[in-house]
């Protein structure tokens, strides 16, 4: 259960203040697959960074299973990121001089998982995102954009987080692979009760989510579930 309460994030640019996240409130039950759509620059990535405790809100709070992020000291926030959150970055943010497997093992290393266990799990995750086995040990900077994106998804799943925040996880993938990733995410929410919030421009992906949000100039609105059924019918 994640509760977002009157979240505001402002940036000063010159003498103008911009509000990419402007009084955003919503709640997600555990196990919900939700999506956020919105124009470029509408504040989607900024909102995800606040939910993932990468950044601190100007005001408002995020409450995860009853615990407020605003009240957590930095050490606890690090632990929250490590244990409870799986973040798929819009720009992947993998460590370029490490192999795919090493990148996926990294969050597990920080969580103190035994080496043999993390190696086995990293390989399993890379298989799940359909990365060719011979590319598992290849360095990240020798992988294609789509391959890197899948490694980034595998890394986000490494510590079996309760909440996955994915910023355009299918942006660089072909239709077929993209569909596979969507299937993977929905099965996680269905079978593992993982809450998943994806930012996407992909209608197909958005249509498959339980709840759909739209962000416009920092303000969040939810599209009714009916519209989703109707959209699916017209598609």
């Amino acid at each position, binding site marked *: 259960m994640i509760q977002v309460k009157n979240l505001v994030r402002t940036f000063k640019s010159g003498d103008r203040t911009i509000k990419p996240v402007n009084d955003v409130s919503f709640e997600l039950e555990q196990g919900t697959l939700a999506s956020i759509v919105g124009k470029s620059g509408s504040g989607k*990535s900024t909102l995800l*960074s606040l939910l*993932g*405790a*990468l*950044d601190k809100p100007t005001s408002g709070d995020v409450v995860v299973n009853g615990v407020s992020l605003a009240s957590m000291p930095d*050490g606890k926030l*690090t*632990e929250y*990121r*490590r*244990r409870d*959150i799986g*973040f798929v*970055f819009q*720009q992947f*943010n*993998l*460590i370029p*001089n*490490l192999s795919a497997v*090493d990148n996926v*093992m*990294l*969050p597990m*290393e*920080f*969580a103190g998982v035994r*080496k043999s266990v993390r190696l086995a799990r990293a390989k399993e995750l890379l298989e799940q995102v359909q990365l060719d086995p011979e590319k598992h040990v290849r360095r990240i900077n020798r992988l294609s954009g789509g391959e890197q994106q899948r490694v980034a998804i595998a*890394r986000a799943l490494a*510590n079996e987080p309760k909440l996955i925040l994915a910023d355009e996880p299918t942006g660089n993938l072909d239709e077929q692979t993209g569909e596979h990733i969507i299937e993977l995410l929905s099965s996680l929410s269905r079978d593992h009760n993982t809450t998943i919030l994806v930012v996407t421009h992909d209608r197909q992906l958005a249509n498959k989510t339980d709840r759909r949000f739209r962000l416009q100039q920092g303000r969040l609105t939810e599209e009714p579930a009916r519209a989703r059924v109707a959209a699916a019918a017209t598609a």
Partner: protein
Amino acid sequence: MSVLARSIGNAFRNKVRTGAVVAVLAVAIGLALSMLVANQAVAAKVAELNASVGTVLTVNPAGGQGFEGGGEPLTAEQAATAATVPNVTSVVGTKALRLRNATETAAQAAAQSAAGTQAGGTQGTGPGGGQGGPGGQNTTTLTTSLTAAVDAGTLGGRNQAAEGTTGSTGATQPVRSLPITATGIGAEVDSTGKALSITEGSGLGDYSAESTNALLGTTLAEKNGLKVGSTFTINDKTYTVAGLFDAGTTFGNNALYVTLPSAQTLAALPGELSTMIVTVDTLENVDSTKTAVQAALGTDKADVTQGQNLETAVSSLDSVKNISFIAFVAALGTAGLIILLIMVMLVRERRREIGVLKAIGAPNRTIGLQFVLEALVLVALGSVVGAAVASFASGGIASALISSNTSTTTAATTGRGMPGGAAGFPGGGAGFPGGGAGFPGGQNGPFGGASQLLTTVTASASPGVIAAGIAAVFGVAIIGALVPALLTARIRPIEVLRGE
């Protein structure tokens, strides 16, 4: 993949830069290690000088020294007087005898009478080690079965001829062997007060009792085919070789030691001393004690000289020690600064990556540790190359330091070629000044030959000193790396969303 493995990987991410950093570090570390080695070597030398002759005063009869000069001989009573002076820890009397090969002496007797007696007035202005004519009150010449281990050579022949002139190029001199110094000693020390280094056999036991045992210099024993237990004669009296000693110089090894009473008996002068070796408790007290001993014995009776004018030498070496220590600290600081700057640069460069690590939940200390380890990998490489540099350079650096720092004082304090305190009788070096004893006190001279100091230096470039130096380098590197490592704690995870 562990933190360490990641750190090693990161250290080699940019190979060209890593190479450059290691090279610069190696220079700094190599310099630091060289300076440490030089410092240790000089410190050891200073300690050795202080320990051996640093606190020793030599008392000679007023107006005489060795076999030269005149005046009244020293006596056992004077030794007792000197022993009562405050701060004096021991007084050792010596009695020097000059031994000549018996058969040669007989053969030359006739020729000598024609050429004039040996009691000549040769002036001590000739080349060092070979000067110092006969004469003086202690010229007790005895015969022996031994043959000197040093050939007379040009200098020896000239001096032995005792024509009364120096540098005579006249008629060809007959070939002679040199005399051998036999010294009666009251303790197991050489004629300069330094403990004898016995290489074989044993000492003489009770040095205050008469005995027929003797200690021979290694080369003298070799020349005469003698071993421990062999016998030889002095004035037809049979002596047994109790042990062999190594004085470190050819000249010093052409000598033998007997107990003080034995020498006095041989000379038929009981209670008479050639010199007294007075040991003072600490180096600080040497000056005041010297004055006190001189006063106690009387200026008309005895000349008290301090070791080998060691104070100047020691203070000169001390300044080399200080310079090398400062240079060591400076080079060490430079290595630390290089690490600091490089790591600050790397942290700035990898800001975004550090943000990624934080975003996926890396604790600050893991990231800090990763950077410290990366710095240590660079330092380890720098140390390997630096230690190699140091092992080649330290000898040269040490000798350069010592020669440049002491060249001015060398002339003033040692007076190359002036009569050597312990060697005030004809020496044998063939042809050039310093036939083994050109410096006062022979091998104990403050700059006992650059070569001798250098052997000490190379000997001191030991794994222990290098290891201690590298440990210091690592200590400084950790401090240097800690600052940038702590900087990583301030980087926020949101950096991941910012562009490069």
